[in-house]
Protein backbone atom coordinates (compact mmCIF):
# COMPACT_ATOMS: atom_id res chain seq x y z
CA UNK A 1 0.00 0.00 0.00
CA UNK A 2 2.70 2.45 0.95
CA UNK A 3 4.70 1.33 -2.05
CA UNK A 4 1.70 2.04 -4.19
CA UNK A 5 1.29 5.54 -2.82
CA UNK A 6 4.95 6.37 -3.10
CA UNK A 7 4.90 4.78 -6.56
CA UNK A 8 2.10 7.07 -7.59
CA UNK A 9 3.81 10.05 -6.04
CA UNK A 10 6.92 9.24 -8.02
CA UNK A 11 4.82 9.05 -11.16
CA UNK A 12 3.38 12.48 -10.49
CA UNK A 13 6.67 14.01 -9.44
CA UNK A 14 8.62 12.82 -12.42
CA UNK A 15 6.13 14.58 -14.70
CA UNK A 16 6.51 17.75 -12.65
CA UNK A 17 10.28 17.50 -12.97
CA UNK A 18 9.98 16.90 -16.69
CA UNK A 19 7.63 19.85 -17.08
CA UNK A 20 10.11 21.93 -15.13
CA UNK A 21 12.94 20.92 -17.39
CA UNK A 22 10.86 21.71 -20.45
CA UNK A 23 10.12 25.12 -18.97
CA UNK A 24 13.79 25.72 -18.31
CA UNK A 25 14.82 24.67 -21.79
CA UNK A 26 12.22 26.94 -23.29
CA UNK A 27 12.81 30.03 -21.24
CA UNK A 28 16.25 29.92 -19.69
CA UNK A 29 18.21 32.71 -21.31
CA UNK A 30 21.42 31.72 -23.02
CA UNK A 31 24.70 32.57 -21.36
CA UNK A 32 25.72 35.82 -22.94
CA UNK A 33 29.32 36.05 -24.01
CA UNK A 34 29.34 39.66 -25.00
CA UNK A 35 31.64 40.45 -27.88
CA UNK A 36 32.53 43.93 -28.99
CA UNK A 37 30.53 44.72 -32.08
CA UNK A 38 32.75 44.93 -35.14
CA UNK A 39 32.17 45.91 -38.72
CA UNK A 40 31.98 42.92 -41.01
CA UNK A 41 31.87 43.02 -44.77
CA UNK A 42 30.89 40.07 -46.90
CA UNK A 43 31.32 39.99 -50.63
CA UNK A 44 28.72 37.55 -51.89
CA UNK A 45 28.87 36.36 -55.46
CA UNK A 46 25.47 35.40 -56.74
CA UNK A 47 25.18 33.02 -59.66
CA UNK A 48 22.54 30.65 -60.89
CA UNK A 49 21.70 29.20 -58.36
CA UNK A 50 24.01 29.73 -55.46
CA UNK A 51 25.48 32.34 -53.24
CA UNK A 52 29.18 32.22 -52.60
CA UNK A 53 29.77 32.31 -49.67
CA UNK A 54 26.40 30.96 -48.66
CA UNK A 55 26.82 30.82 -44.90
CA UNK A 56 27.67 34.02 -43.05
CA UNK A 57 28.53 33.99 -39.35
CA UNK A 58 28.54 37.14 -37.29
CA UNK A 59 28.27 38.09 -33.64
CA UNK A 60 25.25 39.92 -32.29
CA UNK A 61 25.63 43.67 -32.60
CA UNK A 62 28.06 43.56 -35.52
CA UNK A 63 27.52 46.03 -38.29
CA UNK A 64 27.23 43.84 -41.33
CA UNK A 65 27.72 45.01 -44.88
CA UNK A 66 26.77 42.65 -47.64
CA UNK A 67 28.11 43.41 -51.09
CA UNK A 68 26.07 41.50 -53.60
CA UNK A 69 27.87 40.80 -56.84
CA UNK A 70 25.73 39.30 -59.57
CA UNK A 71 27.88 37.24 -61.90
CA UNK A 72 25.51 36.13 -64.64
CA UNK A 73 22.02 37.59 -64.42
CA UNK A 74 20.14 39.97 -62.17
CA UNK A 75 19.87 38.48 -58.68
CA UNK A 76 18.33 39.66 -55.45
CA UNK A 77 18.83 38.99 -51.78
CA UNK A 78 16.20 39.06 -49.07
CA UNK A 79 16.99 38.22 -45.46
CA UNK A 80 14.23 36.47 -43.52
CA UNK A 81 13.68 37.94 -40.13
CA UNK A 82 15.45 41.19 -40.93
CA UNK A 83 13.11 41.98 -43.80
CA UNK A 84 15.92 43.55 -45.84
CA UNK A 85 16.22 43.34 -49.58
CA UNK A 86 18.52 44.36 -52.36
CA UNK A 87 18.93 43.66 -56.07
CA UNK A 88 22.14 43.54 -58.10
CA UNK A 89 22.71 43.68 -61.84
CA UNK A 90 25.92 42.21 -63.22
CA UNK A 91 28.46 45.00 -63.17
CA UNK A 92 26.69 46.91 -60.42
CA UNK A 93 27.50 45.73 -56.94
CA UNK A 94 24.67 46.32 -54.51
CA UNK A 95 25.31 47.09 -50.87
CA UNK A 96 23.23 46.35 -47.82
CA UNK A 97 24.27 47.53 -44.37
CA UNK A 98 22.53 46.66 -41.15
CA UNK A 99 23.17 45.91 -37.50
CA UNK A 100 22.79 42.24 -36.61
CA UNK A 101 20.63 42.78 -33.57
CA UNK A 102 18.47 39.67 -33.88
CA UNK A 103 20.08 36.38 -32.92
CA UNK A 104 19.50 33.09 -34.60
CA UNK A 105 19.74 31.55 -38.00
CA UNK A 106 18.14 33.42 -40.88
CA UNK A 107 17.82 32.22 -44.44
CA UNK A 108 18.38 34.68 -47.24
CA UNK A 109 16.84 34.12 -50.63
CA UNK A 110 16.95 35.40 -54.16
CA UNK A 111 14.16 37.79 -55.04
CA UNK A 112 14.55 38.19 -58.79
CA UNK A 113 13.54 35.22 -60.89
CA UNK A 114 16.84 33.98 -62.25
CA UNK A 115 15.84 30.65 -63.72
CA UNK A 116 14.38 27.30 -62.77
CA UNK A 117 15.96 26.75 -59.40
CA UNK A 118 15.43 30.34 -58.31
CA UNK A 119 13.02 29.47 -55.47
CA UNK A 120 15.75 27.31 -53.96
CA UNK A 121 18.56 29.81 -54.19
CA UNK A 122 19.18 30.09 -50.49
CA UNK A 123 21.92 31.11 -48.10
CA UNK A 124 22.13 31.37 -44.33
CA UNK A 125 23.00 34.21 -41.96
CA UNK A 126 23.98 33.02 -38.49
CA UNK A 127 23.95 35.68 -35.82
CA UNK A 128 25.28 34.54 -32.50
CA UNK A 129 23.94 31.24 -31.30
CA UNK A 130 20.89 29.54 -32.70
CA UNK A 131 18.62 29.46 -29.68
CA UNK A 132 15.85 27.68 -31.56
CA UNK A 133 18.13 24.84 -32.61
CA UNK A 134 19.53 24.38 -29.11
CA UNK A 135 16.17 24.47 -27.43
CA UNK A 136 14.67 22.22 -30.07
CA UNK A 137 17.45 19.67 -29.70
CA UNK A 138 17.21 19.58 -25.92
CA UNK A 139 13.45 19.29 -26.15
CA UNK A 140 13.96 16.38 -28.54
CA UNK A 141 15.85 14.58 -25.82
CA UNK A 142 13.12 15.37 -23.30
CA UNK A 143 10.49 14.27 -25.83
CA UNK A 144 12.18 10.91 -25.93
CA UNK A 145 11.81 10.56 -22.19
CA UNK A 146 8.25 11.85 -22.18
CA UNK A 147 7.20 9.47 -24.92
CA UNK A 148 8.57 6.53 -23.01
CA UNK A 149 6.87 7.57 -19.77
CA UNK A 150 3.55 8.18 -21.47
CA UNK A 151 3.28 4.58 -22.46
CA UNK A 152 4.55 3.19 -19.21
CA UNK A 153 1.62 4.83 -17.48
Amino acid sequence: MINEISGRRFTVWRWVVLAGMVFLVLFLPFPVNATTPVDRTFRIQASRFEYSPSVLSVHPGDRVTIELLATDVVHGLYIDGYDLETTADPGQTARLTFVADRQGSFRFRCTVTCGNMHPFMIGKLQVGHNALLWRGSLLAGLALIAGAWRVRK
Partner: protein
Amino acid sequence: MNRLQEAAWEERVSQGSSEPIRSRRLTLPERIDLYRIPWIRPLLQSRWPQFLIRSLTLAGFVFTIAAGLFGSRVGSHNFAIIFVWIAWWTALKLVFIPLGGRSWCSVCPIALPGEWLQQGGILEKRHRRFGLNLRWPKRLRGSWLQSSGFLLIGLFSALTLTNARVTAWVLVGLFGMAIVLSLVFERRAFCSYICPIGGFTGIYAKTAPVEVRVIDTKICAAHSEKTCYQNCPWGLYPVALRDSSQCGLCMECLRSCPKDNIAVNLRPFGSDLGQARQSSRLDETFLALVMIGSALAFSAVFVGPWGILKSAAFAIGSPAWALYGLGFLALNLVVMPGSFALAVWMGQRWSGYKTQLRRAIANQSQVLLPLGLFAWIAFTISFALPKLNYVLSVVSDPFGWGWNLLGTANTTWSPDVSGFSPILQVALLLIGLLWSTSVAWRLAKVNNQSVFRQTLPILTFCLVFSLAMLWLLVG
Protein backbone atom coordinates in the same frame (compact mmCIF):
# COMPACT_ATOMS: atom_id res chain seq x y z
CA MET B 1 -6.05 2.65 -26.75
CA ASN B 2 -6.77 2.98 -23.04
CA ARG B 3 -5.61 0.49 -20.47
CA LEU B 4 -8.71 -1.69 -20.51
CA GLN B 5 -8.55 -2.12 -24.22
CA GLU B 6 -4.84 -2.70 -24.04
CA ALA B 7 -5.39 -5.46 -21.52
CA ALA B 8 -8.07 -7.07 -23.66
CA TRP B 9 -5.78 -6.79 -26.65
CA GLU B 10 -2.88 -8.41 -24.88
CA GLU B 11 -5.17 -11.17 -23.72
CA ARG B 12 -6.12 -11.93 -27.26
CA VAL B 13 -2.57 -11.89 -28.51
CA SER B 14 -1.33 -14.09 -25.71
CA GLN B 15 -4.07 -16.57 -26.54
CA GLY B 16 -2.07 -17.08 -29.68
CA SER B 17 -4.92 -16.50 -32.06
CA SER B 18 -3.30 -15.71 -35.38
CA GLU B 19 -6.04 -13.36 -36.45
CA PRO B 20 -7.09 -11.48 -33.32
CA ILE B 21 -9.21 -9.15 -35.34
CA ARG B 22 -11.81 -11.83 -36.07
CA SER B 23 -12.93 -11.87 -32.49
CA ARG B 24 -13.76 -8.18 -32.41
CA ARG B 25 -17.47 -7.89 -31.97
CA LEU B 26 -18.64 -4.40 -32.35
CA THR B 27 -17.18 -1.07 -33.18
CA LEU B 28 -14.73 -0.14 -30.47
CA PRO B 29 -15.94 2.57 -28.10
CA GLU B 30 -13.37 5.03 -29.40
CA ARG B 31 -14.76 4.95 -32.89
CA ILE B 32 -17.37 7.31 -34.26
CA ASP B 33 -19.11 5.80 -37.25
CA LEU B 34 -19.59 8.61 -39.73
CA TYR B 35 -21.82 6.46 -41.87
CA ARG B 36 -24.46 6.47 -39.12
CA ILE B 37 -24.55 10.24 -38.89
CA PRO B 38 -27.78 11.34 -40.58
CA TRP B 39 -26.44 14.13 -42.75
CA ILE B 40 -23.25 12.36 -43.78
CA ARG B 41 -24.82 9.09 -44.78
CA PRO B 42 -26.52 10.22 -47.98
CA LEU B 43 -23.33 11.93 -49.10
CA LEU B 44 -21.44 8.67 -48.90
CA GLN B 45 -24.22 6.39 -50.03
CA SER B 46 -24.99 8.23 -53.23
CA ARG B 47 -22.41 8.06 -55.96
CA TRP B 48 -22.97 11.65 -57.02
CA PRO B 49 -21.02 13.68 -54.46
CA GLN B 50 -17.83 11.70 -54.91
CA PHE B 51 -18.34 11.60 -58.66
CA LEU B 52 -18.75 15.36 -58.83
CA ILE B 53 -15.64 15.97 -56.77
CA ARG B 54 -13.67 13.59 -58.95
CA SER B 55 -14.94 15.22 -62.13
CA LEU B 56 -13.71 18.53 -60.80
CA THR B 57 -10.32 17.13 -59.90
CA LEU B 58 -10.17 15.55 -63.35
CA ALA B 59 -10.91 18.87 -65.02
CA GLY B 60 -8.35 20.52 -62.76
CA PHE B 61 -5.86 17.82 -63.69
CA VAL B 62 -6.39 18.40 -67.40
CA PHE B 63 -6.13 22.14 -66.89
CA THR B 64 -2.90 21.65 -64.97
CA ILE B 65 -1.42 19.61 -67.81
CA ALA B 66 -2.47 22.29 -70.29
CA ALA B 67 -0.89 24.99 -68.16
CA GLY B 68 2.27 22.96 -67.86
CA LEU B 69 2.55 22.35 -71.58
CA PHE B 70 1.46 25.71 -72.92
CA GLY B 71 1.92 28.20 -70.13
CA SER B 72 4.84 30.36 -69.14
CA ARG B 73 8.09 28.55 -68.56
CA VAL B 74 8.60 30.61 -65.46
CA GLY B 75 7.64 28.22 -62.69
CA SER B 76 6.42 30.81 -60.24
CA HIS B 77 3.82 31.98 -62.73
CA ASN B 78 2.67 28.63 -63.98
CA PHE B 79 -0.43 26.99 -62.55
CA ALA B 80 1.08 23.54 -63.04
CA ILE B 81 4.13 24.12 -60.88
CA ILE B 82 2.42 26.13 -58.18
CA PHE B 83 -0.61 23.94 -57.89
CA VAL B 84 1.07 20.58 -58.09
CA TRP B 85 4.17 21.23 -56.00
CA ILE B 86 2.91 23.87 -53.61
CA ALA B 87 -0.88 23.95 -53.31
CA TRP B 88 -1.74 20.28 -53.80
CA TRP B 89 1.43 18.98 -52.14
CA THR B 90 0.82 21.15 -49.05
CA ALA B 91 -2.82 20.08 -48.92
CA LEU B 92 -1.73 16.46 -49.25
CA LYS B 93 0.89 16.62 -46.52
CA LEU B 94 -0.92 18.87 -44.09
CA VAL B 95 -4.55 17.87 -44.52
CA PHE B 96 -5.30 14.84 -46.69
CA ILE B 97 -2.79 12.46 -45.13
CA PRO B 98 -2.61 13.42 -41.46
CA LEU B 99 -6.34 13.96 -41.14
CA GLY B 100 -7.74 11.62 -43.76
CA GLY B 101 -5.19 8.90 -44.44
CA ARG B 102 -5.66 7.79 -48.02
CA SER B 103 -8.40 10.36 -48.57
CA TRP B 104 -6.73 11.81 -51.66
CA CYS B 105 -7.05 8.42 -53.34
CA SER B 106 -10.80 8.66 -53.00
CA VAL B 107 -10.88 11.85 -55.11
CA CYS B 108 -7.84 11.33 -57.31
CA PRO B 109 -8.54 11.80 -61.02
CA ILE B 110 -5.65 9.72 -62.35
CA ALA B 111 -7.43 6.41 -61.94
CA LEU B 112 -10.74 7.74 -63.20
CA PRO B 113 -10.68 6.96 -66.93
CA GLY B 114 -9.30 3.52 -66.18
CA GLU B 115 -12.11 2.83 -63.75
CA TRP B 116 -14.68 3.96 -66.28
CA LEU B 117 -13.32 1.58 -68.85
CA GLN B 118 -13.20 -1.26 -66.36
CA GLN B 119 -16.76 -0.79 -65.22
CA GLY B 120 -18.11 0.19 -68.62
CA GLY B 121 -19.74 3.33 -67.34
CA ILE B 122 -18.97 6.60 -65.67
CA LEU B 123 -21.32 6.59 -62.77
CA GLU B 124 -21.73 2.90 -62.07
CA LYS B 125 -21.04 -0.53 -63.46
CA ARG B 126 -22.69 -1.47 -66.68
CA HIS B 127 -22.79 -4.51 -68.86
CA ARG B 128 -20.21 -3.77 -71.50
CA ARG B 129 -16.87 -3.60 -69.81
CA PHE B 130 -13.36 -3.23 -71.12
CA GLY B 131 -10.15 -4.71 -69.96
CA LEU B 132 -8.41 -8.03 -69.63
CA ASN B 133 -8.78 -8.08 -65.85
CA LEU B 134 -5.63 -10.05 -65.25
CA ARG B 135 -4.40 -10.57 -61.75
CA TRP B 136 -1.41 -8.49 -60.74
CA PRO B 137 1.72 -10.69 -60.83
CA LYS B 138 2.63 -12.00 -57.43
CA ARG B 139 6.28 -11.02 -57.78
CA LEU B 140 5.36 -7.39 -58.23
CA ARG B 141 3.04 -7.15 -55.26
CA GLY B 142 3.82 -4.98 -52.30
CA SER B 143 5.15 -1.47 -52.32
CA TRP B 144 8.56 -2.13 -53.85
CA LEU B 145 7.67 -0.51 -57.15
CA GLN B 146 6.22 2.45 -55.32
CA SER B 147 9.41 2.94 -53.32
CA SER B 148 11.43 2.72 -56.50
CA GLY B 149 9.15 5.27 -58.12
CA PHE B 150 9.68 7.63 -55.25
CA LEU B 151 13.45 7.21 -55.45
CA LEU B 152 13.24 7.97 -59.15
CA ILE B 153 11.34 11.15 -58.39
CA GLY B 154 14.07 12.04 -55.93
CA LEU B 155 16.79 11.68 -58.52
CA PHE B 156 15.03 13.98 -60.95
CA SER B 157 13.31 16.17 -58.41
CA ALA B 158 15.28 19.35 -59.05
CA LEU B 159 14.17 19.31 -62.67
CA THR B 160 10.60 18.11 -62.16
CA LEU B 161 9.77 20.54 -59.39
CA THR B 162 10.96 23.55 -61.34
CA ASN B 163 10.11 22.84 -64.96
CA ALA B 164 6.49 23.20 -65.98
CA ARG B 165 6.86 21.12 -69.13
CA VAL B 166 8.45 18.23 -67.27
CA THR B 167 5.77 18.36 -64.59
CA ALA B 168 3.09 18.21 -67.27
CA TRP B 169 4.71 15.25 -68.99
CA VAL B 170 5.08 13.40 -65.70
CA LEU B 171 1.35 13.85 -65.09
CA VAL B 172 0.58 12.72 -68.63
CA GLY B 173 2.80 9.71 -68.11
CA LEU B 174 1.10 8.71 -64.87
CA PHE B 175 -2.28 9.21 -66.48
CA GLY B 176 -1.39 7.09 -69.48
CA MET B 177 0.12 4.38 -67.33
CA ALA B 178 -2.99 4.22 -65.18
CA ILE B 179 -5.23 3.82 -68.22
CA VAL B 180 -3.06 1.14 -69.77
CA LEU B 181 -2.78 -0.80 -66.55
CA SER B 182 -6.53 -0.60 -66.06
CA LEU B 183 -7.06 -2.20 -69.43
CA VAL B 184 -4.70 -5.03 -68.65
CA PHE B 185 -5.07 -5.73 -64.97
CA GLU B 186 -8.00 -5.91 -62.65
CA ARG B 187 -9.03 -3.17 -60.29
CA ARG B 188 -6.84 -0.17 -59.39
CA ALA B 189 -3.54 -1.83 -60.15
CA PHE B 190 -1.77 1.45 -60.80
CA CYS B 191 -2.91 2.93 -57.52
CA SER B 192 -2.08 -0.13 -55.48
CA TYR B 193 1.32 -1.00 -56.87
CA ILE B 194 2.80 1.78 -59.02
CA CYS B 195 1.72 5.20 -57.88
CA PRO B 196 4.52 6.65 -55.72
CA ILE B 197 2.07 8.95 -53.97
CA GLY B 198 -0.10 5.97 -53.13
CA GLY B 199 2.90 4.28 -51.57
CA PHE B 200 3.64 6.76 -48.83
CA THR B 201 0.02 7.83 -48.44
CA GLY B 202 -0.73 4.24 -47.63
CA ILE B 203 1.86 3.72 -44.94
CA TYR B 204 1.09 7.06 -43.30
CA ALA B 205 -2.61 6.24 -43.40
CA LYS B 206 -1.92 3.95 -40.49
CA THR B 207 -1.45 7.03 -38.32
CA ALA B 208 -4.55 8.80 -39.55
CA PRO B 209 -7.86 9.16 -37.74
CA VAL B 210 -10.06 7.67 -40.46
CA GLU B 211 -10.71 4.04 -41.28
CA VAL B 212 -13.18 1.78 -43.03
CA ARG B 213 -13.92 -1.35 -41.05
CA VAL B 214 -16.55 -4.02 -40.72
CA ILE B 215 -18.90 -3.67 -37.75
CA ASP B 216 -19.90 -7.23 -36.89
CA THR B 217 -17.69 -9.97 -38.23
CA LYS B 218 -20.27 -12.67 -37.44
CA ILE B 219 -22.59 -11.17 -40.05
CA CYS B 220 -19.79 -11.33 -42.60
CA ALA B 221 -19.04 -14.94 -41.68
CA ALA B 222 -22.63 -15.84 -42.46
CA HIS B 223 -22.74 -13.89 -45.70
CA SER B 224 -21.48 -16.02 -48.57
CA GLU B 225 -21.72 -13.64 -51.49
CA LYS B 226 -19.00 -11.19 -50.37
CA THR B 227 -20.34 -8.30 -52.44
CA CYS B 228 -17.92 -5.99 -50.70
CA TYR B 229 -14.94 -7.84 -52.10
CA GLN B 230 -16.49 -8.04 -55.57
CA ASN B 231 -16.89 -4.28 -55.64
CA CYS B 232 -13.69 -3.16 -53.98
CA PRO B 233 -11.46 -1.48 -56.60
CA TRP B 234 -8.49 -2.09 -54.34
CA GLY B 235 -9.00 -5.81 -54.14
CA LEU B 236 -9.50 -5.80 -50.39
CA TYR B 237 -11.64 -7.95 -48.18
CA PRO B 238 -13.09 -5.51 -45.64
CA VAL B 239 -13.55 -8.04 -42.89
CA ALA B 240 -9.85 -8.89 -43.04
CA LEU B 241 -8.69 -5.27 -43.01
CA ARG B 242 -5.94 -5.03 -40.40
CA ASP B 243 -4.82 -1.57 -41.18
CA SER B 244 -5.74 1.30 -43.43
CA SER B 245 -2.70 1.31 -45.68
CA GLN B 246 -4.33 -0.40 -48.65
CA CYS B 247 -7.82 1.03 -48.40
CA GLY B 248 -8.43 3.99 -50.69
CA LEU B 249 -11.57 5.19 -48.92
CA CYS B 250 -13.60 4.85 -52.11
CA MET B 251 -16.70 3.74 -50.13
CA GLU B 252 -17.72 1.12 -52.70
CA CYS B 253 -17.94 -1.56 -50.05
CA LEU B 254 -20.18 0.68 -47.97
CA ARG B 255 -22.55 1.11 -50.85
CA SER B 256 -22.65 -2.49 -51.89
CA CYS B 257 -22.95 -4.25 -48.53
CA PRO B 258 -26.49 -5.64 -48.34
CA LYS B 259 -26.23 -5.97 -44.57
CA ASP B 260 -25.09 -2.39 -43.99
CA ASN B 261 -22.31 -3.85 -41.91
CA ILE B 262 -19.45 -1.52 -42.83
CA ALA B 263 -18.50 1.62 -40.99
CA VAL B 264 -16.43 4.70 -41.77
CA ASN B 265 -14.87 5.40 -38.43
CA LEU B 266 -13.23 8.40 -36.92
CA ARG B 267 -10.66 6.95 -34.61
CA PRO B 268 -7.78 8.06 -32.43
CA PHE B 269 -4.56 8.94 -34.20
CA GLY B 270 -2.17 6.08 -34.69
CA SER B 271 -4.70 3.34 -34.07
CA ASP B 272 -3.04 1.01 -36.55
CA LEU B 273 0.31 1.40 -34.85
CA GLY B 274 1.67 -0.51 -31.93
CA GLN B 275 0.30 -3.89 -32.88
CA ALA B 276 2.68 -6.78 -33.03
CA ARG B 277 2.78 -8.19 -36.52
CA GLN B 278 3.41 -11.68 -37.73
CA SER B 279 4.44 -10.63 -41.18
CA SER B 280 8.06 -10.53 -42.27
CA ARG B 281 7.43 -8.54 -45.42
CA LEU B 282 9.93 -5.74 -45.72
CA ASP B 283 8.37 -3.67 -48.45
CA GLU B 284 6.62 -1.23 -46.15
CA THR B 285 9.72 -1.02 -44.01
CA PHE B 286 11.75 -0.09 -47.03
CA LEU B 287 9.24 2.52 -48.05
CA ALA B 288 9.20 4.04 -44.58
CA LEU B 289 13.00 4.20 -44.65
CA VAL B 290 13.01 5.74 -48.13
CA MET B 291 10.66 8.43 -46.90
CA ILE B 292 12.93 9.16 -43.96
CA GLY B 293 16.05 9.24 -46.10
CA SER B 294 14.35 11.37 -48.74
CA ALA B 295 13.23 13.84 -46.10
CA LEU B 296 16.87 14.37 -45.20
CA ALA B 297 18.01 14.54 -48.81
CA PHE B 298 15.28 16.92 -49.95
CA SER B 299 15.82 19.16 -46.94
CA ALA B 300 19.51 19.35 -47.69
CA VAL B 301 19.07 20.02 -51.39
CA PHE B 302 16.10 22.36 -51.41
CA VAL B 303 16.16 24.35 -48.20
CA GLY B 304 19.83 24.11 -47.37
CA PRO B 305 22.39 26.78 -48.27
CA TRP B 306 24.63 24.43 -50.23
CA GLY B 307 24.52 25.69 -53.80
CA ILE B 308 26.87 23.01 -55.03
CA LEU B 309 24.35 20.37 -54.03
CA LYS B 310 21.52 22.17 -55.79
CA SER B 311 23.55 22.64 -58.95
CA ALA B 312 24.52 18.98 -58.92
CA ALA B 313 20.91 17.89 -58.45
CA PHE B 314 19.79 20.16 -61.27
CA ALA B 315 22.46 19.37 -63.85
CA ILE B 316 20.84 16.12 -64.92
CA GLY B 317 23.17 13.92 -66.91
CA SER B 318 26.36 15.56 -65.73
CA PRO B 319 29.04 13.83 -63.63
CA ALA B 320 28.08 16.06 -60.71
CA TRP B 321 24.52 14.80 -60.94
CA ALA B 322 25.75 11.22 -61.09
CA LEU B 323 27.61 11.83 -57.84
CA TYR B 324 24.52 13.38 -56.30
CA GLY B 325 22.46 10.42 -57.49
CA LEU B 326 24.93 7.99 -56.01
CA GLY B 327 24.86 9.81 -52.72
CA PHE B 328 21.07 9.95 -52.73
CA LEU B 329 20.78 6.24 -53.48
CA ALA B 330 23.47 5.33 -50.99
CA LEU B 331 21.59 7.22 -48.31
CA ASN B 332 18.30 5.50 -49.09
CA LEU B 333 19.51 2.04 -50.00
CA VAL B 334 22.43 1.58 -47.64
CA VAL B 335 22.72 4.13 -44.84
CA MET B 336 19.15 4.36 -43.60
CA PRO B 337 18.16 0.69 -43.96
CA GLY B 338 21.54 -0.37 -42.65
CA SER B 339 21.48 1.76 -39.56
CA PHE B 340 17.87 0.91 -38.81
CA ALA B 341 18.55 -2.80 -39.16
CA LEU B 342 21.58 -2.36 -36.94
CA ALA B 343 19.50 -0.59 -34.31
CA VAL B 344 16.92 -3.37 -34.31
CA TRP B 345 19.60 -6.03 -34.15
CA MET B 346 21.37 -4.27 -31.28
CA GLY B 347 18.11 -4.04 -29.41
CA GLN B 348 17.62 -7.74 -29.84
CA ARG B 349 21.13 -8.66 -28.79
CA TRP B 350 21.17 -6.39 -25.80
CA SER B 351 17.82 -7.43 -24.43
CA GLY B 352 18.21 -11.06 -25.21
CA TYR B 353 14.77 -11.14 -26.77
CA LYS B 354 14.94 -13.65 -29.53
CA THR B 355 12.91 -13.41 -32.62
CA GLN B 356 13.51 -13.57 -36.31
CA LEU B 357 15.41 -10.43 -37.26
CA ARG B 358 13.43 -9.88 -40.42
CA ARG B 359 10.17 -9.97 -38.55
CA ALA B 360 11.55 -7.70 -35.87
CA ILE B 361 12.65 -5.15 -38.47
CA ALA B 362 9.28 -5.34 -40.23
CA ASN B 363 7.53 -4.90 -36.92
CA GLN B 364 9.66 -2.07 -35.59
CA SER B 365 9.34 -0.10 -38.80
CA GLN B 366 6.02 1.19 -37.52
CA VAL B 367 8.11 3.47 -35.33
CA LEU B 368 9.29 5.29 -38.46
CA LEU B 369 5.83 6.30 -39.52
CA PRO B 370 5.02 9.24 -37.23
CA LEU B 371 8.65 10.30 -37.49
CA GLY B 372 8.55 10.41 -41.27
CA LEU B 373 5.09 11.93 -41.48
CA PHE B 374 5.99 14.88 -39.31
CA ALA B 375 9.39 15.31 -40.92
CA TRP B 376 7.65 15.66 -44.27
CA ILE B 377 5.07 18.06 -42.85
CA ALA B 378 7.86 20.18 -41.40
CA PHE B 379 9.81 20.10 -44.65
CA THR B 380 6.71 21.02 -46.65
CA ILE B 381 6.10 23.99 -44.38
CA SER B 382 9.71 25.02 -44.72
CA PHE B 383 9.67 25.30 -48.49
CA ALA B 384 6.01 25.96 -49.26
CA LEU B 385 5.00 28.51 -46.64
CA PRO B 386 7.11 31.37 -48.02
CA LYS B 387 5.63 30.68 -51.44
CA LEU B 388 1.94 30.41 -50.66
CA ASN B 389 1.26 33.85 -52.07
CA TYR B 390 2.14 32.44 -55.51
CA VAL B 391 -1.05 30.41 -55.25
CA LEU B 392 -3.09 33.59 -55.20
CA SER B 393 -1.34 35.15 -58.17
CA VAL B 394 -1.37 31.98 -60.23
CA VAL B 395 -5.12 31.54 -59.78
CA SER B 396 -5.60 34.89 -61.50
CA ASP B 397 -2.98 34.27 -64.17
CA PRO B 398 -2.58 30.50 -64.53
CA PHE B 399 -0.55 30.58 -67.73
CA GLY B 400 1.59 33.62 -67.04
CA TRP B 401 -0.01 35.35 -70.00
CA GLY B 402 -0.84 38.58 -68.23
CA TRP B 403 -4.38 37.72 -67.18
CA ASN B 404 -5.95 38.92 -63.99
CA LEU B 405 -9.07 36.85 -63.55
CA LEU B 406 -9.62 37.42 -59.85
CA GLY B 407 -7.58 40.55 -59.40
CA THR B 408 -4.89 38.79 -57.41
CA ALA B 409 -2.32 38.46 -60.18
CA ASN B 410 0.01 41.02 -58.68
CA THR B 411 0.18 39.72 -55.16
CA THR B 412 3.51 41.06 -54.03
CA TRP B 413 6.36 38.99 -52.80
CA SER B 414 5.71 36.82 -49.81
CA PRO B 415 5.04 38.06 -46.33
CA ASP B 416 7.63 37.32 -43.70
CA VAL B 417 6.80 33.95 -42.23
CA SER B 418 10.27 33.63 -40.81
CA GLY B 419 8.99 34.42 -37.36
CA PHE B 420 6.71 31.49 -36.74
CA SER B 421 7.62 29.07 -39.51
CA PRO B 422 10.82 27.73 -37.88
CA ILE B 423 9.08 27.40 -34.51
CA LEU B 424 6.26 25.50 -36.18
CA GLN B 425 8.74 23.17 -37.87
CA VAL B 426 10.51 22.45 -34.59
CA ALA B 427 7.20 21.77 -32.87
CA LEU B 428 6.17 19.35 -35.62
CA LEU B 429 9.46 17.46 -35.50
CA LEU B 430 9.12 17.15 -31.74
CA ILE B 431 5.57 15.83 -32.03
CA GLY B 432 6.76 13.26 -34.54
CA LEU B 433 9.56 12.17 -32.26
CA LEU B 434 7.30 12.00 -29.23
CA TRP B 435 4.77 9.91 -31.08
CA SER B 436 7.40 7.57 -32.53
CA THR B 437 8.80 7.08 -29.09
CA SER B 438 5.45 6.05 -27.72
CA VAL B 439 4.94 3.66 -30.62
CA ALA B 440 8.33 2.11 -29.96
CA TRP B 441 7.52 1.62 -26.31
CA ARG B 442 4.10 0.28 -27.07
CA LEU B 443 5.59 -2.31 -29.41
CA ALA B 444 8.19 -3.34 -26.91
CA LYS B 445 5.60 -3.57 -24.18
CA VAL B 446 3.53 -5.90 -26.26
CA ASN B 447 6.51 -8.16 -26.45
CA ASN B 448 7.09 -7.52 -22.77
CA GLN B 449 10.77 -8.30 -22.57
CA SER B 450 13.53 -5.94 -21.36
CA VAL B 451 11.70 -3.05 -22.82
CA PHE B 452 14.35 -0.45 -22.26
CA ARG B 453 17.18 -2.43 -23.85
CA GLN B 454 15.10 -3.43 -26.77
CA THR B 455 13.98 0.06 -27.58
CA LEU B 456 16.98 2.21 -26.81
CA PRO B 457 18.89 1.66 -30.07
CA ILE B 458 15.80 2.39 -32.10
CA LEU B 459 15.03 5.47 -30.07
CA THR B 460 18.58 6.62 -30.67
CA PHE B 461 18.00 6.19 -34.40
CA CYS B 462 14.87 8.33 -34.14
CA LEU B 463 16.63 10.94 -32.05
CA VAL B 464 19.56 11.21 -34.44
CA PHE B 465 17.19 11.58 -37.36
CA SER B 466 15.22 14.27 -35.57
CA LEU B 467 18.37 16.19 -34.67
CA ALA B 468 19.51 15.96 -38.29
CA MET B 469 16.17 17.30 -39.53
CA LEU B 470 16.25 20.06 -36.93
CA TRP B 471 19.67 21.12 -38.07
CA LEU B 472 18.74 21.00 -41.74
CA LEU B 473 15.52 22.95 -41.35
CA VAL B 474 16.26 25.51 -38.66
CA GLY B 475 19.99 25.23 -38.08
